[in-house]
């Protein structure tokens, strides 16, 4: 994995910031991995398969946007998976017909679709506000707070679905957004939304004052405060945005399956974290990018799908993700150390 950076090319990277260097490095890793997969896995090179690599990971990438911004400030958001489940379940529950059946799980509140979605997103923002309050105001470490809100959000999903799912007596409109395809293709609208969000996030991160603040807080929170940055307010904003993105993901997934599952998106908070780390985002803060996270996601997609293609049992997926994470992070370390001297 480290071999794709011959010393002769090093000079071309000399003027680059460490961040761009790492992003290019990980793109290099991705290209090598893809080539290897094409050699060994039948039909891996087909366009449809490449599209699937993106299409099957859109939800983790959307979650990864909020997680990446927060990691850059030096904070975690482990609540996103729970928020996905909670928002989906709530949207379904709000939208289901009112007293239409003997089965409690088929009865909802009968709220019109648009209002139901808005209310469910408000619920997601509520979790974001909890995170913001404890982390930005009370200064409790983010890992503890968001593990707590992760369980609260998933707990709400469990209670509302009685530990199962709600999938009946939903209006047809509920399934539309998750099952619409871009005309002439087999690509879901959700994938398009993901790409738009990534582009917007990239612009915010690189071009705006808000993006700068994110890096400044991560680089040195105390100096940021003494330089007049409202650190608490900015963190609160990021937690709200992250929760909103998770909420949108929850709505899209619930629509795709026309169901609200309490167990939806279990472990996605870790996937979002892993792709950010694969993309070179530093847990210490102040370093990383949304683009890197995107590349990290595709790397993970290539590895897991080629492993499936090689008839490795899906049971191996977790182990494989772990191994890839370790190798990628070691490779980044080595590449950066080599660059420094």
């Amino acid at each position, binding site marked *: 994995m480290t071999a794709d950076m011959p010393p002769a090319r090093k000079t071309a990277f000399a*003027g680059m910031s460490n961040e761009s260097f790492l992003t290019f490095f990980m793109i290099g890793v991705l290209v090598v991995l893809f080539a290897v997969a094409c050699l060994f896995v039948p039909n891996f090179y087909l366009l449809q398969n490449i599209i699937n690599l993106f299409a099957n990971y859109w939800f983790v990438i959307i979650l990864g946007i909020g997680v990446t911004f927060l990691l850059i400030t030096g904070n975690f958001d482990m609540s996103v998976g729970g928020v996905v489940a909670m928002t989906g379940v709530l949207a379904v529950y709000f939208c289901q017909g009112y007293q239409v059946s003997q089965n409690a799980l088929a009865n909802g509140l009968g709220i019109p679709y648009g209002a139901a979605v808005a209310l469910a997103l408000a619920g997601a923002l509520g979790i974001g506000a909890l995170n913001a309050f404890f982390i930005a105001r009370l200064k409790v470490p983010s890992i503890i707070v968001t593990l707590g809100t992760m369980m609260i959000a998933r707990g709400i999903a469990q209670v509302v679905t009685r530990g199962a799912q709600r999938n009946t007596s939903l209006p047809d409109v509920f399934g539309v957004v998750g099952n619409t395809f871009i005309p002439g293709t087999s690509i879901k609208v959700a994938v398009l939304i993901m790409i738009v969000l990534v582009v917007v996030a990239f612009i915010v991160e690189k*071009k705006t*004052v808000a993006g700068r603040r994110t890096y*400044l807080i991560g680089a040195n929170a105390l*100096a940021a405060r*003494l330089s*007049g940055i409202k650190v608490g307010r900015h963190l609160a904003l990021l937690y709200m945005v992250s929760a909103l993105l998770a909420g949108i993901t929850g709505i899209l997934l619930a629509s795709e399956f026309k169901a609200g599952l309490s167990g939806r998106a279990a472990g996605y908070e870790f996937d979002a974290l892993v792709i950010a780390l694969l993309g070179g985002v530093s847990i210490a803060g*102040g370093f990383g990018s949304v683009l890197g996270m995107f590349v990290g996601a595709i790397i993970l997609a290539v590895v897991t799908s080629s492993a499936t293609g090689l008839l490795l049992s899906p049971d191996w997926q977790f182990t494989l993700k772990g191994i890839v994470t370790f190798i990628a992070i070691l490779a980044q370390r080595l590449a950066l150390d080599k660059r420094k001297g």
Partner: protein
Amino acid sequence: MSQTVNVLEIRDLVKDFPSVRAVNNVSFDIKRNTVHCLVGENGAGKSTLIKVLTGAMPRSAGRILLNGEEYTPHSPKEAKQKGISTLFQELNVVDQLTVAENLTLGMEDTRFGFLRKTGKIAKMVDVMNSLEPSIHPRMLVSSLSVARKQIVEIAKAVATESDIIIMDEPTAAISEGEIARLFKIVKALREKNVTVIYISHRLDEIFELGDYVTVMRDGRHIDTKPVSEIRDRSELIRMMIGKTVFEQYTPKQEACKDPILQVRNLSNHKLHDISFDVHEGEIVGFYGLVGAGKTELARAIYGVDEYEGQITFKDRRLAASPDKAIKAGIALVPEERRSQGLFTILTIRGNVPVMNMKKISRSGFVRASEERAVTQQYIDKLRIATSSTEKEASKLSGGNQQKVVFSKCLFADADLLMLDEPTRGIDVGAKSEIYGIVRRLSEEGKSIMIFSSELHEIMNICDTIFLLFDGRLKATLRNGCDIDNEKILHIVTGGEAT
């Protein structure tokens, strides 16, 4: 034991740092069972000498003899084994454990990995009780005052048969009543066969406590004398400052304009009833020794720490938060450059504009070309030694890093600049450049507050000098030819202003 035998002999000791010789050919003796005081201004080389003695730093040259034997500690632990313990300002006790547990910490008796109750604890408790009977061994250390924690540490040092205990400003953080108790204990240590090396900025303590005193200045050993042979404070102060020639300060010709900052009755946990004015275009200096409250005063004005009292800036009450202070036109160059002022992992370009992002952005979007131009402008203006705007701040020298922090504050378009230890840890050349910048800013009409523990820095550039001691404003002096540095040292070491 007699007091004529040398317990420690220091011979031609030298400690070099990259840009400065902190300890310069120092030789003196310390006699057994005495309280030996070490005094000198900030930067005289006391701390460095202590660090070499305790093994925290290697020496560059010279010899140290402990009880007549060559002594070269490689770590504080080794120093302790050889009989030199240190009571640092940051105490080395574990709050969550009991007194007894702290006493035996690191030398517990065990069997198969389990702790055993042995005579060791009893012995240590005995020693502690002989020093201070009111401390119970089962008490949690967190429930003790700072002074009592110090006693626990002293007891531990005595019980482990230390020959020498070094005390670094032990009275800086404790109350009057507790100081008296500490003094009693220090005096009692003589009978316990312990030599004390006592460092303090409070000169009265030396006369009360010391048997001998060693004065250091600019890294050199000035003199070592029995305290009884020193007439009074002024003689000691003269030894400390010597015949330093200050760079000539030229008083401002014009009379001062309107006040821009008015502080009235400012108090908080560290400050007591401070009131003063700063005028437009004026350079004021706050001088005091470590712990006098300089940084706390800067932090209160800037809105970092809470306070009571009133601060008026440009005829309006100043809100207590850094972002509002900056908006009103105040900028702070903080005390700790790397941890409070600089974003070390970002580039120079990432640092310079942060206090005034509005100026380089339009509707929330950063204008990259303006950002680079501004950064380059400050690199030229302050002569920051770098090859480009994209150099990582951590890779600059201390002086250049400080210039980046200055650039940040200048770009904020502040009318009042607060500089907390602006030249700490930077070389002589960069220092005089920074003084030049400060003078130029004052000529442009900006007001400047300098918080410094270096007297010559204050006397060199400040129009008005405020003297702080123990969180109180003790005196206000106009700088000029009649300024008397002996009087200044008299006041900031706790003497009464006349």
